[in-house]
């Protein structure tokens, strides 16, 4: 590291706009990144004709922290906490998708108890993520009461997950071949209570906004997408489903325990902001329904597979026998040896298809970890939802995508 930082020859701007004013009477404005509606990480350069948005250039990268580069320098185990920080609203889904990718490369089949627990926790995270998104977009419209109702439930969930994992937001709970710990005593009893609270508060929110004139005027026929358009621009998840396409990886390519569950895939009609709000609200109900089914289904048994290539030995054994000590040492220092090859594993994240493309050369450290993050792809198509509407609609349309800076910029 040199003492004197190198200075570039002055450049006009670290971000180059794709366009300037096209006519004399239009103006190009810059929205974000330091703007609460863009989550502080996205910059929208918009050409305006009065209040009307003619075209937009969406630019991200302000939260880029070299996730993929850093992964190539850590063992397969050690990068699990990084994975948490991709989508920090539903960190467990990231955990489990990544772990399943590594397990696929190693040819490991997880235990039944872990399979059901992961499914339950994925759905629980999805509820937390949708609650955040709906609460934030309602608050952006000024609905502070609805925001507080929804965040009350989310906070109860965070505390509840902290009792299980030890952390409120970034859990690092998934492990290759299993989970960090089993469910503590009384956890499911509390889960029942929280789900009842969820229903009470969400009912109030439905009553407050669903048929609210102001809400409908701001959301109906704003940011409309067709199915063909959404597919062309790579939209997945609730945004694609809001256009009426019944696309859900949990149904179409069942993973974990989804094939055994009874649930519906809610879809929208017009593909506008109102539909995206409603699809998320209905999806949360389906998730709660799934969680209730899963609580009945979880079998007793071990949570970790019996595989010394990746699962850490019992602490008491590490201190008492040499084989376990060596095993522990090798797993920490060299990492689990993953057979050479590549795998792409996709889970239905809260915002769309969350894919991990992993490349191994047979070492304890990944050769490459690539994340196909829904938020980043959605930013590439976001202009289709913004162009042609009012300046104030940028806030609602952008909020309905639920862009998460952590996974968008990686």
């Amino acid at each position, binding site marked *: *590291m040199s003492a004197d930082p190198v200075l570039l020859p*002055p*450049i006009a701007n670290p971000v180059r706009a794709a366009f300037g004013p096209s006519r004399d009477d239009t103006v190009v404005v810059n929205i974000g990144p330091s703007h609460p509606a863009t989550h502080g990480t996205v910059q929208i350069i918009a050409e305006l004709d009065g209040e009307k948005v003619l075209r937009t250039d969406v630019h*991200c990268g302000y939260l880029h922290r*070299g996730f993929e580069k850093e992964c190539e320098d850590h063992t397969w185990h050690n990068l699990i906490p990084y994975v948490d920080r991709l989508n920090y609203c539903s960190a467990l889904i990231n955990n489990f998708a990544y772990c399943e990718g590594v397990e696929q490369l190693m040819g490991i089949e997880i235990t039944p108890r872990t399979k059901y627990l992961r499914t339950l926790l994925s759905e629980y995270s999805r509820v937390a993520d949708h609650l955040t998104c709906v609460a934030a977009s309602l608050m952006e419209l000024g609905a502070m009461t609805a925001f507080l109702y929804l965040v009350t439930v989310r906070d109860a969930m965070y505390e509840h997950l902290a009792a299980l994992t030890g952390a409120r937001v970034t859990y690092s709970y998934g492990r290759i071949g299993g989970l960090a710990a089993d469910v503590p005593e009384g956890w499911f009893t509390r889960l029942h209570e929280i789900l009842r609270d969820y229903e009470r508060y969400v009912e109030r929110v439905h009553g407050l906004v669903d048929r609210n004139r102001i809400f409908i005027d701001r959301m109906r026929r704003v940011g409309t997408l067709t199915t063909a358009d959404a597919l062309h621009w*790579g939209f997945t998840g609730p945004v694609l489903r809001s256009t009426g396409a019944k696309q859900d990886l949990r149904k179409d390519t069942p993973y974990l325990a989804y094939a055994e569950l009874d649930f519906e895939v809610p879809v929208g009609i017009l593909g506008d902001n109102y539909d995206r709000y409603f699809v998320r609200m209905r999806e949360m109900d389906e998730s709660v329904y799934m969680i209730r089914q899963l609580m009945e289904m979880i079998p007793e048994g071990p949570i970790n597979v019996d595989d010394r290539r990746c699962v850490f030995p019992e602490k008491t054994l590490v201190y008492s026998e040499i084989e376990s000590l060596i095993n522990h040492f090798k797993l920490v220092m060299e990492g689990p040896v993953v057979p050479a090859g*590549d795998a792409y594993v996709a889970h239905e994240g809260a915002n769309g298809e969350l894919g991990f493309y992993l490349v191994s050369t047979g070492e304890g450290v990944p050769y490459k970890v690539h994340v196909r993050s829904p938020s980043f792809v959605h930013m590439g198509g976001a202009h289709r939802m913004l162009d042609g509407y009012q300046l104030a609609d940028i806030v609602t349309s952008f909020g309905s995508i639920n862009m998460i800076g952590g996974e968008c910029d990686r």
Partner: protein
Amino acid sequence: MTAPIFADVEQTLRQQMVTDTAPNDETPGPLSPSRPVRSMGVRHGILVLELLPEALLAVARRLRDTFSFDLFLDVTAVDWLGQTPRFEVVYHFYSSTHHVRVRLKLRVDESHPVVPSLTSLYGSAGYMERECHDMYGIGFEGNADLRPILLYEGFVGHPLRKDYPKQQEQPLVPYRPPQGALVR
């Protein structure tokens, strides 16, 4: 889990894309202009095809139009430092009708790391190609907008290349004092 569509894709590509009359198509021989595509079989539930960069547009169009792979999922690269050709560009497609994925792999050399752009077929390719260009310096012929997306104007180098040191220091963007009549 092997989807029946994979057999169709493999067979059609063998019939339509491979023009040579090699007696045994099954042998995984090297790629050549007369044999621009070969199937590597189904791996972890995904059909893997290897192809030459020239064949990319034709194969992608056939995948989209004939086999309804209508969702362009991802493009990234793998830097096999020390091998020639050095870079492997990896594409993933998803079919919303058949619910399966296809992976395309093509190799490009360090001296001319350019592949055709898929922006004419999929709108979503634009952003992802920009990221791949940022991170690996892969050029996408036909993508007019390859401005930095995760990096910034003036960033030197391509950080995900294996020969880019993790601790590399970047030139700083100089401080720009606020301008305009409202700022005093």
